[in-house]
């Protein structure tokens, strides 16, 4: 049984990732074009047929998509900077909060999962309250977080630090639940193997359970990353923070009647921010998790 009798090395996966990546990017653009066309087609038909249900179709309810995009390159107010500059500044501010919240929430969520996985008793005792924590609307908790957290923060974090904590609150839960599952996903025989090496509980956790949990962890992180952006935007509202996307959304809400494109344009930027968060996590997963192709989501 020489290795010559066996097939040569099967795949070199890393080198082949560029072309599929381009392909999937192209596919996403195609879908975008189709959605664009559907939107415009419905608008055109709706206006011609004077549809009143489910809502009347006109410039206010369904602005042209090119008008929304075009609005980005109009001044945000008379003699003011371009709308896109205002929104990018706001997005950068919100991104800072969301990123800090995401990291904080992911770390806390992971740590909670590790502790709970090591004790069935703790797990049974705490899990219901973790679930309960997610049933309370964030808007009901945010004021307390602002009051508790803000006075204790250093100058550099004042204001937005509380928002990061709110984003973290929305992030940690999926991370905890999925990581808990992942930590328990190790093959029982792999555990026996570790015991045959006289491995301590800690070593089994470190060398087996944690690496085995990574695919689950990253699934959770991909859910949590856009959720952190939403959490940051929502957290800005009760914190009275004007510099982020929430400020822009509130502002353009008030002017929707006269300039609906501005709010739509803001939504586009907010969505783009969420997508960027997702893509960053997905790329990190590719770099860090080496798995059989069928196990990579």
């Amino acid at each position, binding site marked *: *049984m020489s290795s010559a009798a066996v097939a040569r090395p099967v795949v070199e996966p890393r080198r082949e990732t560029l072309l599929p990546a381009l392909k999937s990017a192209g596919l996403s653009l195609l879908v975008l074009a189709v959605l664009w066309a559907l939107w415009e087609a419905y608008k055109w038909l709706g206006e011609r047929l004077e549809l009143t249900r489910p809502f009347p179709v006109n410039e206010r309810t369904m602005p042209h998509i090119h008008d929304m995009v075009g609005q980005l390159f109009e001044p945000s107010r008379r003699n003011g900077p371009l709308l896109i500059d205002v929104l990018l500044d706001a997005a950068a501010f919100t991104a800072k909060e969301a990123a800090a919240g995401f990291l904080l929430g992911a770390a806390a969520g992971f740590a909670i999962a590790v502790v709970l996985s090591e004790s069935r008793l703790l797990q049974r005792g705490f899990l219901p309250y973790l679930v309960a924590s997610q049933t309370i609307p964030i808007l009901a908790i945010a004021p307390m977080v602002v009051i508790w957290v803000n006075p204790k923060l250093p100058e550099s974090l004042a204001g937005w630090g509380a928002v990061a904590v709110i984003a973290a609150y929305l992030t940690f839960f999926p991370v905890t639940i999925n990581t808990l599952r992942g930590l328990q996903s190790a093959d029982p025989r792999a555990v*026996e*193997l570790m015991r*045959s090496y006289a491995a301590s509980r800690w070593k089994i956790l470190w*060398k087996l359970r944690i690496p085995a949990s990574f695919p689950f962890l990253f699934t959770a992180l991909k859910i949590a990353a856009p959720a952190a952006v939403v959490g940051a935007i929502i957290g800005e509202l009760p914190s009275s923070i004007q510099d982020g996307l929430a400020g822009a959304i509130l502002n353009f809400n008030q002017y929707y009647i006269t300039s609906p494109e501005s709010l739509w344009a803001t939504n586009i930027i907010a969505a783009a921010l969420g997508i960027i968060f997702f893509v960053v996590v997905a790329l990190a997963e590719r770099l860090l998790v080496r*798995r059989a192709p069928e196990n990579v989501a």
Partner: protein
Amino acid sequence: MSTGAAAVSITGLSKRFERGDVLALERIDLDVQPGEFVSLIGPSGCGKSTLLRIIGDLIRPTDGDVLVNGKSAHRARLDRDYGIVFQDAVLYDWRTVAKNIALPLEMAGWDRKRRETRVGEMVDLVELTGFEKHHPWQLSGGMQQRVSIARALSFSPPLLLMDEPFGALDEMTRERMNNELLRIWQETLSTVVFVTHSIAESVFLSTRVVVMSARPGRIAGVVEVDLPQPRGPETREHPHFAELITEVRRLLRKGHALDAPEEDEETLYVAEEGL
């Protein structure tokens, strides 16, 4: 190995599973001498995998004594006195072939330099040169199992426990792996306890075949395999080979067990998993 103690010494061993109140093993007495290759063969439910796990201190017996290299099975496990190979290779997906083989060495606290040297030797031993950087899912089933054997032998344990290691492989790969295992056994001078469902495999590999009967598992008889060493493809044509197979089959039948284990291996294995 040269302490004079038996590699494995089992006296009056019984195992009762609380769940379902099943008597899995009853009054087992078995000695394995250093350097022996002993197969445990028997039908589903005879508890041979359970017996292997008790030797490895992965399960505790209900009754009786198990000594490995003259010490308690528990002490032997903590001293890393044995390597174990399962039916599935149980490799870590996130580790390369080289890192999988190095796992027990990391656990034993070897430094990087020593680990790398040893992994190189083991890769040569199981003839996987060129595949060190591959991940398990890039290998065939036979190659994965060779990695698993290299991993079990990497820290030179005096005892090798194998739980149907080739049960999931096709017949041709299985015969190749059998030849390979014999070569490795002779090169490493280790003691092997080998669980199998295949009569031919047990006779071909072993110096002794321990035939077990079904629930509760008992030793139905022992067949000394005095075929010449070293063995190879010609061993299967040896006139005595067929006689020994008949002898093992007779003992299996005596244990009220043998209908057609060869055809039924998969279901037998699955049934035993639930034990």
